[in-house]
């Protein structure tokens, strides 16, 4: 972490010097080639370390990566906490003058748009029953770019078509608009706002504290990711509404912060009223059937799904039937959220001690059969599942907890009491 700060300050300081030396350079490349930029801007030599005798230590990316992942896991919530699975999220993007700054290459606006696109895809992957809407802050007003919807392509297309920045940003107008829009959603949904704020100030028509109290009483969870510096008003907003405030240091850090909001946050129990939502599970229509689909209003050949209530044809799931309004999903969509309800326990670090008898150590990782011994027969670091006691390498640990959500050891041994009672 220290490194990052030094880098950030160093970078800004360098740029200050160069601005005096060279004139009218639009690109931050400043007349250098791309390969030179990686040395000048990223200062990769600063991450080298020396050991006790002064020799260079090889950069152990694996251990670093694993330590980062452990940190992420520790801050993540445990199984006992309820999560808000049906989310209605508005992404508010700051397109004011400050978004045209070029400290993020090519400009803050483009970098933010790129990260929002990746976020939207990841969001729908992890929360198939939720919906996203986009709002922009430009010229002191807030405009709704897309309505709440479940299709990633329409949001991304709308965003990429509207990338211009000008004027001031108004936090209060953005919050007012989102508050009015989120009032229309059903009571079982969790209301969330993610603001990507580049400016250092906000230009408001009234008292923003009132707006913040309004959002708090409407149970909207506001989170902000700042791109320039920490602002008190943003911190206050997030504290009041129970959201997360973070400031990005560079593009990879921004990506990490944005994707942190993809898995469902812990639900504050009083925020959403539990309800039974009526949903339909359409069957796939037989191949070779011709019908008019209700989403495109044209005749389609084969494929598609039939709404069980009104028998209209829809092209893809999940969606809302346009004729009768029934939410249509398939059972895999619900299954995508089950791992949030049944997360697996984090694995324990196993430190190889000198007193361990060599032949008692596990030779290979249970999951991928990779040898747990470094070259030279010295044991490297590995982890073990607290439940089934099987040993895994660090890479499998990251894969299992971030993507697979199943412990191969626990699944490969029949237990007398079943792990989960979920049955379909």
């Amino acid at each position: 972490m220290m490194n990052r700060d030094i880098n950030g300050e160093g970078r800004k300081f360098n740029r200050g010097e160069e601005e005096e030396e060279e004139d009218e350079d639009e690109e931050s490349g400043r007349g250098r080639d791309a390969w030179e930029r990686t040395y000048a801007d990223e200062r990769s030599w600063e991450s080298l370390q020396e050991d006790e005798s002064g020799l260079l230590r090889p950069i152990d990316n694996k251990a670093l990566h694993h330590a980062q992942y452990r940190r992420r896991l520790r801050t993540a919530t445990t199984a006992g906490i309820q999560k808000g699975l049906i989310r209605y999220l508005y992404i508010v993007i700051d397109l004011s003058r400050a978004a045209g700054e070029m400290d993020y290459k090519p400009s803050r606006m483009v970098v933010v748009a790129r990260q929002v696109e990746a976020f939207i895809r990841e969001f729908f992957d992890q929360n198939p029953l939720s919906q996203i809407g986009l709002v922009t802050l430009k010229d002191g007003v807030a405009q709704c770019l897309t309505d709440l919807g479940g299709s990633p392509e329409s949001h991304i297309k709308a965003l990429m078509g509207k990338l211009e920045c000008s004027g001031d940003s108004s936090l209060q107008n953005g919050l007012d608009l989102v508050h009015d829009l989120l009032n229309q959603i059903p009571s079982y949904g969790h209301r969330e706002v993610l603001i990507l704020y580049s400016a250092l100030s906000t230009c408001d028509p009234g008292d923003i504290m009132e707006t913040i109290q309004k959002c708090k009483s409407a149970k909207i969870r506001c989170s902000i990711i700042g791109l320039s510096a920490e602002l008190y008003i943003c911190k206050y907003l997030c504290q009041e509404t129970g959201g997360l405030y973070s400031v990005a240091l560079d593009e990879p850090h921004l990506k990490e912060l944005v994707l942190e909001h993809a898995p469902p946050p812990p639900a504050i129990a009083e925020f959403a009223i539990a309800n039974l939502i009526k949903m339909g599970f359409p069957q796939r229509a037989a191949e070779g059937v011709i019908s008019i689909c209700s989403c495109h209003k044209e005749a389609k050949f084969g494929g598609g799904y039939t709404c069980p209530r009104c028998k209209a044809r829809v092209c893809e799931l999940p969606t809302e039937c346009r004729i009768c309004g029934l939410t249509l999903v398939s059972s895999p969509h619900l299954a995508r959220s089950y791992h949030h309800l049944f997360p697996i326990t984090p694995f324990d670090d196993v430190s190889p001690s000198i007193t361990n008898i060599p032949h008692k150590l596990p030779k290979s990782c249970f999951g991928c059969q990779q040898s747990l011994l470094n070259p030279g027969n010295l044991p490297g670091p590995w982890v073990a599942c607290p439940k089934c006691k099987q040993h895994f390498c660090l890479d499998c640990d990251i894969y299992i907890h971030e993507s697979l959500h199943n412990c191969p050891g626990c699944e490969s041994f029949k237990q007398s009491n079943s792990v989960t009672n979920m049955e379909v």
Partner: protein
Amino acid sequence: MSPPVPSKILTDDVSLLMVLIDSNPHFWSSIKPHFSFSKFLSHVLAFLNSILLLNQLNQVVVIATGINSCGYVFDSSSGSVSQRAESLLPKLEEFAENDESLSERDDDSGNGVGSSLLSGSLSMALCYIQRVFRSGPLHPQPRIICLHGSPDGPGQYVAIMNSIFSAQRSMVPIDSCVIGIQHSAFLQQASYITGGVYLKPQQLDGLFQYLATVFATDLHSRNFLQLPKPVGVDFRASCFCHKNTIDMGFICSVCLSIFCKHQKKCSTCGSIFGQAQTRDPSASQQRK
């Protein structure tokens, strides 16, 4: 680890095939018409050898799916010379004995044909595939084939769906070749979601022919072939109260449990519908 090749010329058609063999003894002893496990293995071994012959760089890894455990029994790239598939037989025998000995401790007999631990071997196969992805930019194209016959175990539903979604994200197709008379809903969904092929051969005497014509081709060449299309994959859910398949139901907004009729209270998470929740972490009760 891999056989020493002077220059790794990996073309489009090099594959890594993960084979998950169902070794459930209750299933194999009760299959009708009679098709013995050893006959089944002779077809499979011929198939695996033919994969290894198709391309010098092809790799085959076999994981056995038992009723009490799962384990690796063959890896064609281990050892200095590429192994023939027959060398899996002693390891498979050892695995089967170990698997049966584990079940003597449980008093689970008389349950009919139990299910085998498909979720375990799928998870292990996916971990191995991730290791191959990490080995560098030049790697064979991985895919998974399940040679399965045991009935689906409802307790594995969540784990199998997790594996399917992870395979979908890594773009690894899961092919299924179902032995016996019963279709497997889990494998149908797996093959449909990941873009693999699902097949239930009609005549098991010709199993090698089915395997060689449908499952042997690499992923790149599949674009040019007419392979069996998915027929009638049923994505409807079953209600938690009666286990009936329903096409319209009610979902609890807290825990996503499915019910067929309106209820006052969710039986899975205890949430009372229509009122704000109290502060107790009711979701934790589900794990018991």
